[in-house]
Every structure is written in structure tokens, then in C-alpha cells.
């Protein structure tokens, strides 16, 4: 038992070291791909709070990325506030919007909730376009500052470490979250709402706070995204494609688990970048179709995602061995 436990830590340490030295020997292109995978992993983990643990299938999370990205970028460009501080404001703004979506989830169930979140994202896009004075409207905002004090770096390797830290933070958060009182309460509601009320869980409050936490984290991800891409515009962020990608990554990897987001992102992000590089110019909306198909296949064939599948296989092998 102790031997096994020691092995687990050795494996984790090796993976950590490999991830940390990766930019030293890999070329910039590969570093950039893995970096994006980390970012999407974090976004998928954020989605997981409400989508996986809460069982509310949101297809509007791109809106929270945008709210986060715009909040910190406006603070940065108009008021000179560093995104190291601005990202928390971004989280709060996105979180407040998330609470609104949480209120909607009390009324809208299943596919109707998903449709509602799509509509919500469109609304956010329209508002970002409408308030030109603050958001730059359809022209968006260009980040003109530079320097690490503004979370802006020269090389992809720096962003790689930033995204890596973000992803690890997300992973540790979910590990803690799923064993916390609130996490257990949220899952209880997902599993049976009436029984959850019957043990004293305030369903209303828990759902709203769950959605707010999910959006808060996604908003922080939005800040990091903006800092990397240096340029934000409503139509390049608030895309159904992004919302679907977040959900697909988590569901493919294993929704409602701390590792699902990372597993899904490591598989789907390189795949979609690759496919887009080849076909992107020719077939519009290709990745949306890809995510749709992948989602469908996983939901039908591998409920629990890849993590769930591996875990089941492993458990049954262990049982068989005894």
C-alpha cells in the first residue's frame, strides 16, 4: 500500500518535471499547442463546477470568458490597472452574470437550460457591441501595454508557465471542491433534487452560487486568454464554438471529476488546432461540427468520459486480480 502510494508521487513528480522542462527542448509551435491545451483545460474545469458537478449543461460559457476578458482589459487599457489585480474583478463581474444564469437554471431544465445559456451568450455579445464607448464595439480592444507587471510576456514559454500554473490551480481547486461541503451539496442536487432538499440543502442558493463560482473561474480564464491573445473583439470570443468546445472537452475527459478537463483538453485541443489548420479555411464551422459529433459519441458510447472509462477498466482489473 505504502509502496503504491510512493509510486503515485514519483509518477506525479516526473510528470511535473517533464511539463516544466518541456519549453526548454520543444519548439515554439509545440509549446504553444500545449499551452492552449492548459488554458482550455482550466476553462473546462471551470465549466465542470456547474456543468459536471452541478449537472447543468451550459452552452454559454464563452460569455463569461468575454466578460472576464473585457473587464480586466478595460481596467488595464483605460485605467492602467494591472491584470494581476484586474483578473479578480474579471472573476467578480463574470461571477455576478453567472449568478443570473444560476437563477435561470431554477426554471429551465435540461435542454431548455442549454438553450437559455446560448441566448444569454448572444445577449452578452450584443451588449458588448452596443456599448461602444466602453468596449470599442465591433472593433474590440487592443492591448498596447507591455511588461510582466501587466501580465504581458515576450515569449510563448512564459505564457506556457502561466497557463500551466492556472491549470494546476484549477485541478487543485476541483480536488478540494469535490470533497467540500458545498461540492457534495451540489452533486446531491444533481443526483436528486427532492432528496437534497430533504437533507436540508438549500437548492436555490446552492445552484445560484454554483453557477457563480463556475463563471467566476471562467472570467479569470478570460483575463488570461486576453493577456495571451492581446486583442479582444466580441465576435472572436463570444462564439458558440468556444462554448461548445469548453463543454465538449470536459465531457470527453470526464465531467464531474477533477481530471476530466485536462484529459479532454490534451486530446481535443491539438486535434482541433490540427484540423483547423488543414481544413479551417475551406469548411466554415468545422470545429463546431467536430465538437458536436465528439460530444454525441461520448455521451452515448462512453458516459463518464475517458477518465470514467479508464477508472472502470482499472477498478475491474483490480477486482479481477484479487
Amino acid at each position: 500500500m505504502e509502496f503504491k502510494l510512493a509510486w503515485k508521487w514519483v509518477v506525479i513528480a516526473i510528470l511535473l518535471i517533464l511539463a516544466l522542462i518541456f519549453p526548454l527542448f520543444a519548439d515554439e509551435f509545440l509549446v504553444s499547442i500545449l499551452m492552449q491545451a492548459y488554458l482550455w483545460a482550466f476553462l473546462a474545469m471551470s465549466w465542470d463546477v456547474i456543468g459536471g458537478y452541478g449537472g447543468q449543461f451550459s452552452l454559454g460559457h464563452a460569455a463569461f470568458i468575454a466578460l472576464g476578458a473585457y473587464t480586466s482589459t478595460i481596467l488595464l487599457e483605460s485605467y492602467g490597472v494591472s491584470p494581476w489585480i484586474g483578473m479578480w474583478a474579471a472573476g467578480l463581474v463574470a461571477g455576478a452574470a453567472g449568478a443570473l444564469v444560476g437563477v435561470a437554471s431554477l426554471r429551465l431544465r435540461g435542454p431548455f437550460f442549454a438553450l437559455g445559456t446560448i441566448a444569454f451568450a448572444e445577449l452578452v455579445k450584443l451588449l458588448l457591441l452596443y456599448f461602444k464607448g466602453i468596449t470599442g464595439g465591433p472593433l474590440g480592444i487592443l492591448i498596447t501595454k507591455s511588461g510582466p507587471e501587466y501580465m504581458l510576456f515576450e515569449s510563448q514559454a512564459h505564457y506556457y508557465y502561466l497557463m500551466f500554473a492556472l491549470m494546476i490551480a484549477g485541478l487543485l481547486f476541483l480536488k478540494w471542491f469535490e470533497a467540500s461541503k458545498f461540492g457534495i451539496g451540489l452533486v446531491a442536487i444533481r443526483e436528486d433534487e427532492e432528496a437534497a432538499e430533504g437533507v436540508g440543502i438549500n437548492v436555490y442558493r446552492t445552484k445560484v452560487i454554483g453557477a457563480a463560482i463556475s463563471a467566476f473561474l471562467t472570467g479569470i480564464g478570460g483575463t488570461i486568454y486576453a493577456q495571451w491573445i492581446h486583442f479582444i473583439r466580441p465576435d472572436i470570443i463570444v462564439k458558440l464554438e468556444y462554448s461548445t468546445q469548453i463543454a465538449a472537452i470536459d465531457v470527453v475527459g470526464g465531467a464531474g471529476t477533477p481530471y476530466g478537463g485536462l484529459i479532454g483538453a490534451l486530446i481535443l485541443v491539438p486535434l482541433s488546432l490540427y484540423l483547423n489548420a488543414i481544413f479551417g479555411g475551406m469548411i466554415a464551422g468545422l470545429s463546431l461540427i467536430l465538437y458536436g459529433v465528439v460530444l454525441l459519441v461520448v455521451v452515448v458510447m462512453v458516459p463518464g468520459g475517458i477518465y470514467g472509462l479508464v477508472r472502470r477498466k482499472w477498478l475491474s482489473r483490480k477486482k479481477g486480480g484479487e
Partner: protein
Amino acid sequence: MLEVKDVVKRFGGLVALNKVSLTLKENELLGLIGPNGSGKTTLFNVITGYYRPEEGKVFYRGEEITGLRPHLIVKKGIARTFQIPKPFGRLTVLENVMSAAMYGRKAASRSEAREIAMDWLEYVRLKDKADVEAKALNIVERKLMELARALSTGPDLLLLDELVAGLNPSEMMEVVKLVRKLVDERGLTIIMVEHVMKAVMSISDRVFVLHRGAKLAEGRPQEVSRDPKVIEAYLGEPIQV
């Protein structure tokens, strides 16, 4: 301890409860019986806040709790089980029961909740299943887990909805003994809805008979089982004591 006063609950044109009144003394075990559709579960749902009655009131320890949200009723000290068990399938048995300790009346910390949960799991003899996912339990285990979960909220009043239905006779007697012990040894007050006459009659202090949403009879088990109205309601089904 509990007073239900002239409660009326309608579903469209159907009157599920028609001016039902019921009082319950501290540390009493009340058997609530009646044919299918007589309103037993509806009455539970009214008491525990799942339904708001059209008329009438519910008092608990002198305080009106009519139509209070279910999670607030739990915090007053009333817990229930469901007729068809409602496990949190993908949580472990321990987590299921812990959730009740953390969110229930005691609002226990995680470590306290763990202790409370383990104690009750031991009480219902489900301790060795603590780390199993709840969806893997069989029907008997699910019912026992529901009992442990309800108990973990820290109730003074416990409402059991057909806890022993579907159990075989020996399991049934085991569970029935557990329920009786909760009243005798732990000081709980219990209302027990049951179809199995033998189970109710053997352990109840008092029996309350509902028929078509209204009270048909009330009294000690022996009296009720001899009551011609009750016998007629059950279409002559012999009631064994």
C-alpha cells in the same frame, strides 16, 4: 409535538386530503395506514414542506411551519425517507449520509459529519458499504441508507414512508425492531407509513387510518384492527395483530 389542523390538499379536481387533523405526542410511534391513494404520502409531503396545503395549518412544537421550504423544515428537526428511495447515486454511501449531517439541523463540520454518518451507518448495519457508490446498493440497502441519511440530519421527528415495503419477512422484522429502538432508546418521535399491517400493528403506539383523504379511525392497534369501518375499507382483508 406535531399538530396538523384541518389540512386540505387538492390536485385539480381530486381532493387528496380533506380536512385532516392529527396530533402527535413527544416520543410516540404513530402508524399511518390506509389503502392505496388514501393520502398518506401526500400528508407527509404537506408536513415536510414539499406541498403547500390549500387550507389548514401545520404546527411543530407550537410554531407554524405550514408551507415552509423542505430544507428549512429539516432544520426545525423533522426528517423523512421517501417511498421510493432517492439515493444520491454517484456519491458514496458515506457521502450520502454525511451530506445530511452537514446540511441538516446539526450543520456539522466535515469531520463531525463523518463521525455522525459512521455511527448511523453502523446502527443500520451498513458500515461496510460506506465507500460504495450509492447506486450500487440493492433495494434493502438503499432503504437502510435512507434511514441513516434521515437520522443524520439530527431529527426529533422522523417520517418513514413505507420503509419496510419490498423487504422479506425476516429483514422486515429486523428493520421494524430498529425503528422501535429509535423511539425507546433514542427518544425520537416517529410517524410510519406502512402497507404491511403486521409491521405497523406490532410496533405502533397508536394507529391513524386514512381513507380517501380523510380520517377513518384512530386508536390503539388492537382497537383499530377490530374497527368494522377499517375492515370494510380494506375490503375485508383480515388484519393480523
